[in-house]
């Protein structure tokens, strides 16, 4: 052996074999060294060369040192970054003894022959291959992918997911793609594929995130039997294959494979080992991470949460809490902490199995939450989880009298008292208030007691009293009993309301008010107000104050800016009687008026007018009205009137302004105005916060100076004229009857009634056809007579003024009727006929004397004349039965024609100047009875039938 060691040995590697592991992309080498002696072990160095594509293209060379035995098969692997399928690899090695027992010099052996590793031979005949298959890489690393194409002509493109990648050609058929700093896409891998003309081929690349070192590694025990270690594993590696976690104790040499990635259980053995040196090892394909801690079992006890926490023997002020704990080890004690939530009290109790503790001084009818947690008594490390339990203490009688106030009104002299009380606070109710008892005691009649029960939650009641003094007691009742009584005294007489109202200023805190005590025996003071005075009924509020108080701050969430609050301060006497002390009004914050008064203009003269807004209430405004601004604008002049000052209005126009600083002054006289001028005015109130909104100006036009004449003289005259006109209108009928009597209706004439008594009852009125037209000739005109001519067609010059004028009735020559009659034309009824120039010619009996018209000074005269003629012509007709059945319209003389001579000569066929209404002596003028002899009044109106 010594000889061997003294000489250099020609040791060469033999039987070198190279194989390919495609899964791991490794070249696996195995060889032996034959020339070693038996039992000889030498430390040797093997130098390995790896070539790619051709033997001369060495891509890697390295040494591998190991201790070698005789005929030992040695193994070594080399991982290729390029998929081994894509290139032929060649491997050779040489060796050198590197043993300290062998003296230098040391020589390398000869190289072995090149061994070829060719994976392409095992591929099939597919046109395209992509390698490596299912490669697992770590995020951020580089990976090389290659493809082998059988078709040289095919133009192949490769993509990582959908991103085109560029590679380099390794061989005629082989391209390699180096992917730098690969990133994680998804847990299910990243597709890399190549496609040409044929079916695409590809591989799936699994990218793993870097395995993190576990953080916050700690251990504890709940029961001294099992140690539970927990840690934060960090972010997921992003692979379906999770990293493994192993817990190792170096003291005992034991280890356990953890079932969870963030927690591991370690069973404590019975060998009373207290201290452990735990090492947690996290491992995946690429990395191994580990953390260690030293763990003392006794110092890491974290007890389990207690259980079965219940209240026992619950009274109004006491309760006993009971609970149980899980035992730890053998007879170990736990320190438990009982907390009463809200009370701020903690009680520590030592417990082995069952815990119990009496809680006292509790409030009645109060819900509590009790909590318990425990820790290991021998060595405190950590509290257990809390468990909690709610319970409610029993009720007790209310502990405080309700706060009572009253509002007294007098109806018909009898006081009506509305009692108000505030609900007791939760602290004092000690249970649910069921009802309130109101006891009314008449102090003048001590035996008289009236008891009212008002169910909760009512907070007021109304009591009507007599004019006596009363004491009223109010108590609140719950299921256990009544509260102390609250007393209010009422006198049977109205209070003194004659107290001057003062003002109080509001601040952010409320209303600061003070008062002056009136008596030394006051037992307290009450300030009352309404929270929302704008809405009725008033929500009465009050504040009780002690006898030493002479001021307070009244605040309420209901107080709003711009609302006037009225406060009344009462002094309470020793007999609980309230006396009004002061009244105050105030605003939390004054605002500018929200609206302006309705202003009326009165007493308008040519030089002045008066503005009045007496309906404007200063009480209900958004601030104390301090006065009013009167704005005046005139179109005639820019100068302001006396006492007015020039101002710029909010609309930037120029106007005159007068300030009324008395809020009670609600009229204003604008004087010194110009007559017949237009003025515009506008009145707005102002408070300390500003003036009211700008409204439209109202226009006023002053009258002229003479308008009073119009008013005082002309208007009465117009009135008188109107009275006269109305009177005339009302008496028009009378006037008409007097001046223009109605034409009687022939059919309604009393003559008809006479005819009925005659033998010829068929004769009613004259038939025009039966009339013999006559001409009326004026044969003489008596001097001074005046005849009214209407429908005159000829001028007076055409008349023969020298011819004596008299009226004559001449029979017509061609008349063939039974006899002449007189025909008058009434133009009122037959205007058409007159227009045609015709006139009616009426038959007149031959025996009739000439119709002579006397002095026709009036229609009456004419009528009388005619009547006389007819009376004469009728002869035998008794007077009173033979009446004329017409009224001549011509009888009304016109002033213009009064002096005119008769216009028409007596021409039979022409219209006479004197148009006559027919006057029929019914007995004689009647034509012979015939079928056509009857004539209706309508026939008279037909002009075509008037004359033939």
């Amino acid at each position: 052996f010594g000889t061997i060691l003294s000489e250099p040995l020609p040791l060469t590697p033999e039987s070198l074999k190279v194989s390919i592991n495609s899964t791991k992309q490794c070249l696996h080498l195995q060889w032996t060294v034959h020339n070693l002696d038996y039992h000889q072990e030498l430390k040797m160095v093997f130098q390995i060369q790896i070539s790619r594509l051709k033997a001369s293209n060495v891509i890697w060379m390295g040494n591998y040192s190991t201790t070698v035995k005789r005929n030992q098969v040695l193994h070594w692997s080399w991982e290729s970054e390029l998929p081994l399928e894509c290139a032929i690899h060649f491997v050779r090695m040489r060796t050198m003894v590197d043993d300290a027992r062998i003296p230098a010099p040391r020589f390398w052996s000869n190289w072995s022959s090149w061994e070829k590793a060719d994976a392409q031979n095992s591929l099939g005949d597919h046109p395209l291959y992509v390698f490596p298959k299912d490669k697992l890489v770590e995020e951020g690393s580089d990976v090389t992918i290659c493809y082998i194409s059988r078709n040289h002509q095919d133009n192949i493109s490769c993509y990582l997911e959908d991103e085109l990648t560029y590679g380099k050609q390794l061989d005629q058929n082989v391209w390699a793609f180096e992917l730098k700093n690969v990133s994680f896409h998804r847990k299910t891998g990243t597709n890399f594929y190549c496609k040409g003309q044929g079916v695409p081929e590809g591989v799936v690349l699994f990218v793993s995130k870097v395995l993190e070192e576990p953080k916050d590694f700690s251990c504890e025990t709940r029961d001294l039997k099992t140690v539970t270690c927990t840690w934060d594993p960090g972010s997921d590696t992003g692979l379906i294959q999770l990293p493994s976690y192993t817990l190792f104790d170096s003291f005992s040499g034991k280890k356990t494979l953890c079932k969870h990635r963030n927690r591991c259980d370690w069973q404590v053995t019975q060998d009373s080992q207290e201290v452990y040196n735990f090492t947690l090892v996290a491992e995946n394909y690429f990395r191994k991470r580990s953390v260690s801690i030293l763990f003392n079992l006794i110092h890491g006890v974290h007890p389990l949460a207690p259980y079965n926490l219940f209240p026992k023997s619950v009274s109004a002020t006491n309760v006993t809490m009971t609970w149980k704990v899980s035992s730890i080890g053998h007879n170990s004690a736990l320190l438990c902490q009982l907390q009463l939530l809200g009370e701020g009290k903690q009680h520590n109790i030592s417990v082995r199995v069952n815990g119990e503790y009496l809680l006292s001084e509790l409030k009645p009818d109060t819900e509590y939450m009790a909590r318990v947690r425990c820790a290991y008594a021998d060595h405190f490390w950590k509290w257990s989880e809390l468990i909690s339990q709610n319970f409610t203490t029993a009720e007790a009688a209310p502990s405080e009298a309700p706060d009572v106030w009253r509002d007294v009104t007098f109806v018909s002299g009898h006081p009506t008292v509305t009692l108000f009380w505030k609900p007791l606070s939760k602290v004092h109710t000690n249970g649910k208030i069921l009802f309130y008892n109101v006891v009314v005691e008449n102090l003048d009649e001590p035996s008289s007691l009236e008891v009212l029960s008002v169910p909760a939650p009512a907070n007021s009641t109304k009591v009507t009293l007599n004019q006596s003094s009363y004491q009223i007691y109010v108590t609140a009742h719950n299921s256990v009993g009544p509260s102390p009584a609250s007393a209010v005294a009422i006198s049977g007489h109205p209070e003194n309301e004659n107290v001057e109202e003062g003002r109080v200023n509001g601040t952010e805190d409320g209303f600061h008010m003070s008062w002056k005590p009136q008596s030394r025996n006051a037992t307290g003071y009450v300030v009352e107000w309404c929270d929302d005075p704008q809405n009725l009924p008033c929500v009465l509020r009050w504040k009780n104050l002690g006898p030493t108080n002479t001021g307070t701050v009244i605040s309420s969430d209901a107080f709003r800016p711009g609302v006037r609050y009225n406060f009344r301060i009462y002094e309470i006497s020793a007999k609980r009687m309230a006396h009004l002390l002061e009244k105050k009004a105030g605003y939390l914050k004054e605002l500018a008026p929200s609206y302006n008064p309705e202003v009326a203009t009165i007493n308008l003269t040519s030089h002045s007018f008066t503005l009045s807004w007496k309906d404007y209430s200063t009480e209900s405004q958004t601030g104390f009205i301090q006065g009013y601004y009167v704005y005046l604008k005139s179109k005639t002049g820019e100068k302001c009137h006396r006492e007015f000052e020039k101002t710029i209005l909010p609309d930037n126009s120029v106007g005159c302004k007068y300030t009324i600083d008395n809020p009670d002054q609600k009229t204003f006289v604008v004087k010194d105005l110009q007559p017949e001028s237009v003025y515009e005015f506008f009145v707005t109130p102002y408070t300390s916060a500003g003036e009211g909104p700008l409204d439209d100006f109202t226009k006023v036009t002053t009258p002229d100076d003479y308008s009073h004449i119009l008013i005082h003289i002309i208007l009465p005259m117009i009135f008188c004229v109107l009275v006269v006109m109305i009177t005339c209108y009302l008496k028009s009928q009378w006037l008409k009857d007097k001046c223009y009597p109605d034409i009687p209706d022939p059919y309604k004439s009393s003559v008809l009634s006479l005819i009925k008594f005659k033998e010829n009852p068929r004769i009613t009125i004259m038939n025009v056809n039966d009339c013999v037209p006559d001409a009326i000739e004026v044969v003489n005109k008596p001097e001074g007579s005046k005849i009214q001519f209407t429908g005159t067609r000829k001028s007076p010059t055409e008349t023969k003024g020298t011819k004596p004028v008299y009226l004559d009735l001449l029979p017509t020559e061609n008349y063939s009727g039974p006899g002449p009659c007189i025909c008058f034309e009434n133009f009122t009824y037959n205007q058409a006929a007159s227009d045609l120039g015709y006139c009616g010619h009426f038959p007149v009996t031959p025996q009739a004397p000439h119709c002579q018209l006397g002095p026709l000074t009036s229609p009456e005269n004419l009528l009388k004349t005619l009547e006389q003629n007819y009376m004469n012509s009728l002869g035998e007709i008794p007077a009173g039965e033979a009446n004329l059945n017409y009224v001549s319209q011509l009888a009304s003389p016109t002033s213009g024609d009064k002096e005119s001579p008769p216009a028409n000569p007596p021409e039979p066929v022409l219209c006479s100047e004197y148009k006559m209404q027919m006057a029929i002596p019914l007995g004689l003028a009647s034509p012979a009875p015939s079928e056509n002899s009857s004539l209706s009044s309508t026939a008279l109106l037909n002009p075509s039938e008037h004359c033939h």
Partner: protein
Amino acid sequence: MKVLAAGVVPLLLVLHWKHGAGSPLPITPVNATCATRHPCPSNLMNQIRNQLGQLNSSANSLFILYYTAQGEPFPNNLDKLCSPNVTDFPPFHANGTEKARLVELYRIIAYLGASLGNITRDQKVLNPYAHGLHSKLNATADVLRGLLSNVLCRLCSKYHVSHVDVTYGPDTSGKDIFQKKKLGCQLLGKYKQNDHHQCLG
């Protein structure tokens, strides 16, 4: 005329078969006994028709779910990666006798069932969170099993055929992941390749 089966469309033709046509194929010896565990339902052909319709109606959505879950390049290279060129798919002859067509239908169903099993197994590993795909694959496999049972019942009760030699697709367990994805896509492409107008013809 021999018609190469393409997808499940030929399966639908079985719905129009008339009983008693043709002669039995020598699948089972004539004298061999065939007994079913339970009597065949009276509306057997209706059930088969309904099951085929059910498969037909869900085939396309299953295909979409599958290739979507595989990621690129599958959704945009369906014509190449998922083309239904499954060479070993059992043939179907539409002009054969009823018995022959039932036998061929049986082989197709068996082939599909096995392939779907492989796909389901692979996808549970490759896409463990694609629950929609998994449930759809399971539901389809359930229907295929019921259809296989019904066809066998018909063969057995009417033609006394108790055994049919079947073939299966390639086992994908040893293949790389990309190949698994591709083969599954090709099979499902083949499976869904049917004409909806002929559904329930």
